[in-house]
């Protein structure tokens, strides 16, 4: 079976639009991916047929909305191979999922306990731990990066000590595209009895995962990067862990009984879902997991890998090596998130000129300033690809870069 990129593209109306009179070449997928009709329609159908509040209603729409919401949880559980749907907590995104852990798991930590992150983390997996450090005196330690933009796993034993309670690292770097060897993190963490949290924001857009096989304790990701609506994300954790953890936010839907003196909380996952949840967005995320599972064939993966390879080699060929790849140089153990600098041109100028060619890139620190400091750059330009990208996108990128370099230097 071959992969028909045009058929896929036709599911995304936005890919037909022009910007500045040029066809859109959307290569900013790591920031937010586009949304297919299947997902848009699922959300709209929900809103015009089953919109209601969930969990406590008796009437038809409330029952239907509750069923849709809980079915979406089942979809997500299937997508990540969770042992049970009650391990799937709906949040408003990766950031709020990690903050949930920082508050809830963090509440059990003592001054001097260590949390290990890495040099490659997105601010969303740095700042919550800094705030926890302020609240409770934990120590934050950092796995260094290698010069090709991976976690330096040889340093694990230096960084992860007996005092470590949690190792929180990214599955795939949003700057370098490097794919973390999670089993080595898990091994090192388990050796000292620490839990492992994986920031999967950049991994899940590329297909289903298996949290059980990964052997981790927490896994976080966002809907909007995996073709689902904004305002929805997932925290997955083992049920026993969720049972043991205190709630994060308080409100409706997360309680068993409330008196003015005291409150008894509901069981997971609802214990962690205070207030009216993002219902239609959950329905959209459920639809997105099904859509993506179907799209993610070996042929589709090959299609993306080829585009990534062309991009990497095309960048190497431009303007006698004036382009420096920030991250792995090759295609091994990396996803199609490609960062680079252009000698003598600021990333924002690169992005702006490429924009005038219809090419949407991201330039700047990518919410990963510590990694920028490590590479001693103020920012990079990033092209991030996914299934619906095509040859024309890569050509437009490379031609646009050529033009930018000619124009600005």
């Amino acid at each position: 079976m071959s992969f028909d990129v045009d058929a896929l593209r036709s599911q995304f109306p936005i890919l037909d639009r022009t910007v500045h009179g040029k066809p859109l070449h959307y290569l900013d997928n790591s920031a937010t991916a586009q949304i297919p009709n299947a997902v848009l329609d699922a959300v709209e159908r929900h809103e015009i047929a089953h919109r209601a509040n969930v969990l406590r209603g008796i009437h038809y729409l409330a029952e239907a909305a509750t069923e849709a919401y809980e079915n979406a949880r089942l979809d997500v559980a299937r997508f990540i191979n969770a042992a049970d749907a009650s391990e799937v907590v709906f949040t408003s995104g990766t950031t709020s999922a990690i903050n949930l852990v920082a508050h809830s798991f963090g509440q059990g930590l003592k001054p001097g306990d260590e949390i290990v992150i890495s040099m490659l983390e997105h601010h969303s997996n740095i700042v919550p731990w800094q705030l926890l450090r302020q609240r409770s005196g934990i120590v934050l330690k950092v796995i260094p990066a290698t010069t090709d933009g991976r976690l330096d796993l040889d340093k694990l034993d230096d960084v992860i000590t007996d005092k470590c309670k949690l190792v929180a690292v990214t599955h795939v770097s949003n700057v370098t595209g490097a794919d973390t060897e999670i089993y080595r993190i898990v091994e090192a963490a388990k050796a000292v009895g620490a839990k492992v949290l994986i920031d999967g924001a950049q991994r899940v857009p590329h297909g289903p995962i298996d949290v059980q096989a990964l052997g981790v304790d927490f896994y976080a990701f966002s809907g909007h990067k995996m073709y689902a609506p904004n305002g929805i994300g997932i925290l997955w954790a083992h049920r026993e862990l969720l049972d043991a953890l205190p709630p994060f936010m308080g409100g409706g839907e997360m309680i068993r009984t409330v008196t003015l003196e005291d409150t008894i909380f509901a069981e997971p996952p609802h214990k962690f879902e205070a207030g009216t949840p993002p219902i239609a967005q959950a329905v959209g995320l459920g639809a997105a997991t099904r859509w993506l599972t179907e799209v993610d064939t070996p042929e589709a993966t090959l299609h993306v890998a080829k585009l990534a390879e062309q991009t990497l080699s095309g960048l190497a060929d431009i303007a006698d090596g004036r382009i420096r790849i920030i991250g792995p140089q090759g295609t091994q153990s990396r996803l199609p998130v490609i960062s680079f600098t252009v000698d003598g041109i600021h990333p924002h100028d690169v992005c702006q000129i490429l924009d005038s060619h219809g090419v949407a890139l991201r330039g700047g620190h990518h919410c990963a300033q510590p990694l920028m400091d490590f590479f001693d750059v103020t920012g990079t330009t990033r092209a991030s690809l996914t299934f619906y990208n095509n040859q024309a996108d890569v050509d437009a990128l490379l031609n646009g870069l050529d033009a930018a370099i000619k124009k600005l230097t």
Partner: protein
Amino acid sequence: MYQDEIVTLAKSKTGAQRLENPDATVTLDNPLCGDRVTLDVNVADGKIMAVGHRVRGCMLCEASASLVARDAIGTDTDSIAPARDKLEALLKKGAEVSGDDPWSTVTTFGPVAEFKSRHECVLLPFEALGKAVEQAEDKD
């Protein structure tokens, strides 16, 4: 869903008074709707001798408590857990209930199957009886 049989059962208030000397008493809540069942039981020789209850709950819960009180007398104590499971299977999976079983009367609640939010209302008295029987036998 409120078929005559269910409404009649609820109104009958069968067993709707507490026992004087229960072997065990159990109170269970359904936090979703605030239903609360308090159920007393007397057992002897592995059989249920008497059931009394007080229900603060909806009509489905009352009907279920009435049915439990009506049909439990004389049945084996170890028939209660399977009866509950049979009711659950009926509600959640539309399972068939075979006719010659003493607890085949749970089919009364067949119409509740399509109303998921009400399943717990019907199950609660069965769960209370199951727990009460267990406690009573532990005491022996």
